[in-house]
């Protein structure tokens, strides 16, 4: 990819192929020497036409299609969808099913936050932290596999309930796993808040005030780390959250450090809520009957994904297939924050800033050609990462 001269500034293209983001995204940073003066984004490299695809599939088939929008927060997509469809059909899943949905959602949040912790640490060059946190993440992956049979797409939801039950043995296994993870999370909290080398990369970096976060439309932990009090689990509780409320975690810091602290504190909240549900899990059926044709109407379904508010608009024309499904994922909202917050920062901060909003990693490498005064260089994401680490050494 050719970097272009834009006035007297240079444009550094990043992506679309690189391991920093869940979706291949293309960013262009305009730099003046070391300092980023502008940024833009181009998405759509993995646009799969899922919204259009839903219009050609039955209500049941769509659970599986929509669950595959994301490989990290898969369960939360299916949950938003089934809750919306159940509302249209005028049924609600039995309490035990709602509890199991919520346990799965919180286990998913644990796996997502631990994955992010490792990724963000890796971008800063803290590979020991990365490896420890991913080792510990295996605990929760094993738990998800134990209860659902799958590590990634758990397929917990069906229209009107869930597919699997939690017996006493499985609940005990979850409790043991959580005890281990809680102890580890205390350790991570200590590392990210006291380790001076780590703080040097996070404290005061990527500062976003509450006003900025609101104007830029940030959601989830990214917004809460700037003091925005917004969490769908609390604002509009769904599934089992009305009976097992979670506490709102915010931080007024607004920098990368605050984003670490908020996500780690949310982990403790996950552990607490899962234990509370397991201790008082309602008895009863796992599913209720949902008609094959969903009555005509439209609904809006919102849930709190690990990355923030996930929005579904579902419209039925009374048939076996939906008329329209609109999905707005939390990452879409958070792109805007990267593009704005990047301005004024050093190029060396970009890897951690990008990772700070919790985009996900695929395992490709990425090439960037940087043109400086006619002489060109090839940079991969790895080069940029190393550049960032060396810059701060």
């Amino acid at each position, binding site marked *: 990819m050719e970097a272009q001269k834009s006035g007297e500034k240079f444009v550094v293209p990043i992506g679309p192929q690189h391991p920093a983001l869940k979706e291949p995204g293309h960013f262009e940073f305009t730099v003046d020497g070391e300092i980023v003066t502008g940024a833009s984004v181009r998405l759509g490299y993995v646009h799969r036409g899922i*919204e259009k695809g839903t219009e050609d599939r039955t209500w049941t088939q769509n659970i599986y299609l929509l669950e595959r929008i994301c490989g990290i927060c898969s369960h939360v997509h299916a949950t938003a969808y089934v809750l919306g469809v159940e509302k249209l059909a005028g049924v609600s899943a039995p309490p035990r099913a709602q509890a199991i949905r919520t346990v799965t959602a919180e286990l998913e949040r644990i796996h997502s936050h631990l994955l992010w912790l490792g990724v963000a640490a890796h971008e800063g060059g803290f590979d020991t932290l990365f490896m420890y946190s991913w080792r510990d993440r295996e605990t929760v992956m094993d738990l998800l596999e134990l209860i659902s049979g799958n590590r990634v797409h758990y397929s917990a939801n069906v229209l009107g309930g869930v597919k699997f039950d939690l017996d006493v043995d499985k609940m005990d296994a979850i409790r043991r796993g959580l005890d281990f993870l809680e102890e580890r999370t205390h350790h991570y909290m200590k590392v990210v808040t006291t380790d001076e080398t780590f703080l040097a990369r996070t404290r005061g970096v990527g500062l976003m005030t509450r006003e900025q976060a609101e104007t*830029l439309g940030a959601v989830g932990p990214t917004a809460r780390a700037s003091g925005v009090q917004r969490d769908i689990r609390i604002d509009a509780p769904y599934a089992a959250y009305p009976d097992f409320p979670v506490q709102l975690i915010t931080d007024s810091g607004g920098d990368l450090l605050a984003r670490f602290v908020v996500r780690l504190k949310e982990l403790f909240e996950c552990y607490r809520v899962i234990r509370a549900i397991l201790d008082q899990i309602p008895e009863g059926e796992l599913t209720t009957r949902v008609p094959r044709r969903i009555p005509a109407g439209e609904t809006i379904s919102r849930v709190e994904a690990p990355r923030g508010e996930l929005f579904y608009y579902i419209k039925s024309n009374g048939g076996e297939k939906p008329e329209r499904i609109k999905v707005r994922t939390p990452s879409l909202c958070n792109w805007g924050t990267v593009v704005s917050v990047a301005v004024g920062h050093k190029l060396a901060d970009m890897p951690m800033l990008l990772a700070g909003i919790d985009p996900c990693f695929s395992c490709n490498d990425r090439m960037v050609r940087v043109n400086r005064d006619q002489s060109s260089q090839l940079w991969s994401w790895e080069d940029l990462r190393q550049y960032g680490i060396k810059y701060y050494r």
Partner: protein
Amino acid sequence: MDSQTALQTAEKLLEPYGMEMIRQDDLRLDVLLSPDQLHEAVKALHDARWGYLSAIAGVDHPAPCEDAVASGGIDQEKKGQVEVLYVFCQGAAVLTLRVKVPYTRAELPTVCDVIPSATLYERELMEMFGVEIRGTPVKDRLLLPDEWPEGVYPLRKTTMIGTACSSSKDEV
């Protein structure tokens, strides 16, 4: 502010603009607007700091099939409409501003001057439904491939999956 008070406040704020207001359920208020009033209404909500823009969703309303067949597809162009929903949320309260534009004059004003984060949603709407957003800061392709043919809007009902792709392949 609880959800009911929030929705009542919204009703008052939007009274000068809305053609019709519908309470879908306890927590949802729909306000039908004409395209000219959209910008003013969004500004009124923003100035009163009512909630936040959660999503912009397009919904296609093609002309009924029998009409389209009778007129040999001409009415399809004339009568089809795109409905655009601007969804605002405050706590559990959900407010939807609904605007309908005909295919023949599919244009809306931008709201980016009031809510900068709307830019990605507006770009998506332009590409997927062919609604021209007047004054939106960036009009570059966001989601569709560079070689995607002009004038093919994938989320319109008349666009069949497969046909748009094959024509774009032909061009390449």
